[in-house]
């Protein structure tokens, strides 16, 4: 089980809810993935709020925990206010804190992220920060009150997979007791397995499932891949070597000449 701010989580896949072909496909993907946590957002709506209401009811019917995000926020005050509004609606102290610093890469503004974390943590929020793989930033986030870290492995929506395995390895080594969740950049189940084999605790993804030809089946594939990587890390993998080693015993081999 994974402990996230005192909540015990069985599934190590956190799933985003955006960009699915339909609400029915989203619901099926959530079910097939067996995820226990989905991410959601808050947006302006002029139609009396009825679209938001329908989505809210659908998410609640799925029976999973909700992790609201502050996606699209570009500064401390905007992110803090969005987090407070999310808590009002979703009745949870959890917040996936995103403060975007660059339009092209959607990379986090880590300075604003740390500042917003400090404000929100002191207000009782349990912050899941969307951050980079920078160790110093990670330290600052922990000092500011985070008990979970969510580094990207590639820019949001790129499906590029882990671009800097060395940095992710360092992160795992430096923070052995902090839940680490790779958030953003995963494209294929093998990418998810790779980061889980490094000892990461969970993977948060969205586009890789929502944009797949068959999202529900892909969600299930990711669940299996993440579990496989997690099991493999725990079971102790071999290190690669240069020279061959016979797998079949040599002792007792017949000699015919």
């Amino acid at each position, binding site marked *: 089980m994974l402990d996230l701010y005192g909540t015990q989580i069985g599934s190590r896949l956190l799933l*985003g*809810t*955006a*960009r*699915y072909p339909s609400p029915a496909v*989203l619901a099926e993907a959530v079910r097939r993935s067996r995820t226990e946590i989905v*991410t*959601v*957002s*808050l*947006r*302006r*709506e*002029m139609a*009396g*709020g*009825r*679209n*938001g*209401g329908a*989505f*809210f009811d659908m*998410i609640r019917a799925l029976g999973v925990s909700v992790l*609201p*995000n502050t*996606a699209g926020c570009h500064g401390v*005050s905007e992110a803090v*206010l*969005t987090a*407070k*509004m*999310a808590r*009002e*609606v*979703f009745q949870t102290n959890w917040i996936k804190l995103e403060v975007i610093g660059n339009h092209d890469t959607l990379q986090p503004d880590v300075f604003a992220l740390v500042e917003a974390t400090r404000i929100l943590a002191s207000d009782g929020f349990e912050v899941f920060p969307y951050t980079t793989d920078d160790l110093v930033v990670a330290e600052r986030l922990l000092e500011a009150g985070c008990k979970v870290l969510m580094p990207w492995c590639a820019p*949001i929506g790129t499906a590029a997979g882990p671009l800097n395995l060395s940095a992710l390895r360092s992160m795992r080594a430096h923070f052995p007791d902090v839940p680490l969740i790779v958030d953003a950049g995963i494209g294929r189940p093998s990418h998810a397995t790779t980061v889980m084999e490094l000892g990461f605790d969970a993977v948060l993804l*969205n*586009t890789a499932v929502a944009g797949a030809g068959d999202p529900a089946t892909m969600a299930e594939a990711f669940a299996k891949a993440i579990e496989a990587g997690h099991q493999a890390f725990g079971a102790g993998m071999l290190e690669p070597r240069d020279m061959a080693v016979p797998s079949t015993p040599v002792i007792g081999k017949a000699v015919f000449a």
Partner: protein
Amino acid sequence: MRLIINGEPETIAATTLSQLLAALAYEGEWLATAVNGELVHREDRDDHLLNDNDRIEILTPMQGG
């Protein structure tokens, strides 16, 4: 009263935030409201008086990653 609602200028007859939501046909427990950059809790909307040129945000749940 002249108000900026979700970024759009509007003229609406409402003196409180609750009245504004009713006038715009917003209803439901899933709404979040802010006035001039400050959260206004659900239970405070009846008493929250509006002023000319207030900036009001009304947010609802949406898909997210």
